[in-house]
């Protein structure tokens, strides 16, 4: 059984069909890329999968469970983590706190236990902190744990988002253009990180523009154009697919 099954997912905004009848499966343990020109509906697709937007039509099954209609925090609880295209860290909290917050759905202690501070609370709090540091070490940010998140340079903020997504302890991680705005060096480092995520046993859905990156790392690619899935396959197939070339470069003009 596939980890994620999407069946005829459609999202319309008024007359605009942002995603139309998308059907695909994501197998466990792979790097699955979603590519397509600007405005193809990639981020809308992500938002539908994570519950930020409700799909107009269609079904989404995660581990065999229907997730359509669930709230974003419930979906996070089920095991889908994500990053955002336009960085959305918590700027005024420290780097460490950013990652600590993300363990919310994996922890229990409420307001009463926070006041009483019994054994359970102290233990949980220590474990939250310990794990947060672990995730920061994974993305190589543990040295900056105490700095305010807003003080990080751009590339580090992107990596912090990944650490934060990891801290929700997901089986499936959605990365929305994690390399946007990075230089080739940073992008290469990031891709090593994504590869390590896979080795850690996470399944990854990646939105990315940089073709070299996508082709080098992906196990499976789907291509969206104007909300419609126009192709899917392994990287080599996608590169040769005339419909994909057309979507990116336009149709060859013949006399």
């Amino acid at each position: 059984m596939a980890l994620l099954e999407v069946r005829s997912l459609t999202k319309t905004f008024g007359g605009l069909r942002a995603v139309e009848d998308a059907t695909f499966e994501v197998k466990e343990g792979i790097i699955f890329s979603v590519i397509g020109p600007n405005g193809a509906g990639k981020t809308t697709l992500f938002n539908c999968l994570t519950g930020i937007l409700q799909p107009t039509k269609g079904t989404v099954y995660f581990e065999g469970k229907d997730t359509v209609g669930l709230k974003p925090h419930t979906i996070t609880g089920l095991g889908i983590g994500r990053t955002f295209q336009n960085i959305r860290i918590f700027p005024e909290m420290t780097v460490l706190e950013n990652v600590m917050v993300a363990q919310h759905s994996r922890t229990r202690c409420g307001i009463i236990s926070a006041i009483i501070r019994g054994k359970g609370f102290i233990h949980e709090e220590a474990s939250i902190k310990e794990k947060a540091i672990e995730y920061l070490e994974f993305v190589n940010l543990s040295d900056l744990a105490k700095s305010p998140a807003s003080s990080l340079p751009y590339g580090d903020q992107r990596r912090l988002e990944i650490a934060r997504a990891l801290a929700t302890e997901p089986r499936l991680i959605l990365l929305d253009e994690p390399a946007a705005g990075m230089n080739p060096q940073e992008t290469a480092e990031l891709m090593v990180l994504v590869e390590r995520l896979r080795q850690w046993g996470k399944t990854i859905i990646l939105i990315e523009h940089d073709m070299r990156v996508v082709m080098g790392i992906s196990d499976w690619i789907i291509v969206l154009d104007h909300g419609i899935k126009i192709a899917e396959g392994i990287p080599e197939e996608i590169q040769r697919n005339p419909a994909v070339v057309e979507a990116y470069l336009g149709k060859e003009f013949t006399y």
Partner: protein
Amino acid sequence: MIRALIIASGLCLLVLPLMGIKSAAIVFISILAVITLLSFIRRHRHIFRIGIKVPAIYKRTAVLVTVMAVLLLPVYGDNYLIDVSSLSGIYIILAMGLNVVVGFAGLLNLGFAAFYAIGAYSTAILTTRLDMPFWLSMPMSVTMASFLGILLAIPALRLRGDYLAIVTLGFGEIIRIVLNNWDSLTNGPNGILNIPSPSIGGFKINRLSHYYYMVLLFVFLCIFVVRRVHNSRVGRAWLAIREDETAAEAMGIDTVRYKLLAFSFGAFWAGLAGALFAGKMHFVSPESFTFMESVLILCMVIIGGLGSIPGVILGAVILIILPEVLREFQTYRMLALGSGLVLMMIFRPQGLLGGRGGAIRG
């Protein structure tokens, strides 16, 4: 410098009709001097930075001295000082409560005095009409206020930012108007008189110093509890909602639930402050819970520093003590307060003790 000139002349014009040309000139010059000095300090911050690193031992001594001064206040202070201090205590609790809503969760609430009013009136009604002892009516009033906090939050949660502020403002006014007009229960604009003094066993709390210690006890309780909640999973969830609601939701936080919790937790403290107020004054009337009261509490939170617990305490003390200190200036004291606020917004918009990122460091 131009900005300084504009500010100084603006305030000077305000003062002119009240105090005459001579005082206005003094105001003008002194403001200009203060602003120039402040901007000099700001520009050459690095010179002063070295001096700011205070060794931990001094900090601890300072805290100890403050706590001793507060504890022994009735020993060395006169009745007036004790009274004003008790009032500050009540406002510290209020400001701490509002800080949870505005400072932690980032939900602007302009009707906070409504919960204060609910706490005070519940205590007043329960003790005078039903002859309930104070210590029984207090938890009931607090529960009532928290419950109303949730009730207000349910419709308000659909709104963000300014819209939320307007709804809470409306809610505050509704409560005040209901209190003003529901004669059979609240005795209308005349208010409720003869609220009995609280007593423990046979010991009646009826002297100013007794009240002072009673309020102080609850202030310490409030600081203790709010600090602990702030530094926890719940507090972090609130901060995350303040920073970015969508991202908070994606991190697994049930934002609706935590906003409700913030509203009712904040209202809890307002209710407590209301009960203390009723027990201290022996009298409540709608006049004590106007929109200006909500604004005053909000000012305390903002002046002290949004989200910073020591800041909010300082803000409450300043805004209660300052008008008292300025009492001899009579009519001008609100003016002085207003200009202080304006200067504050220009030079230190994050509040006196509000550094970046509020107070907690996990």
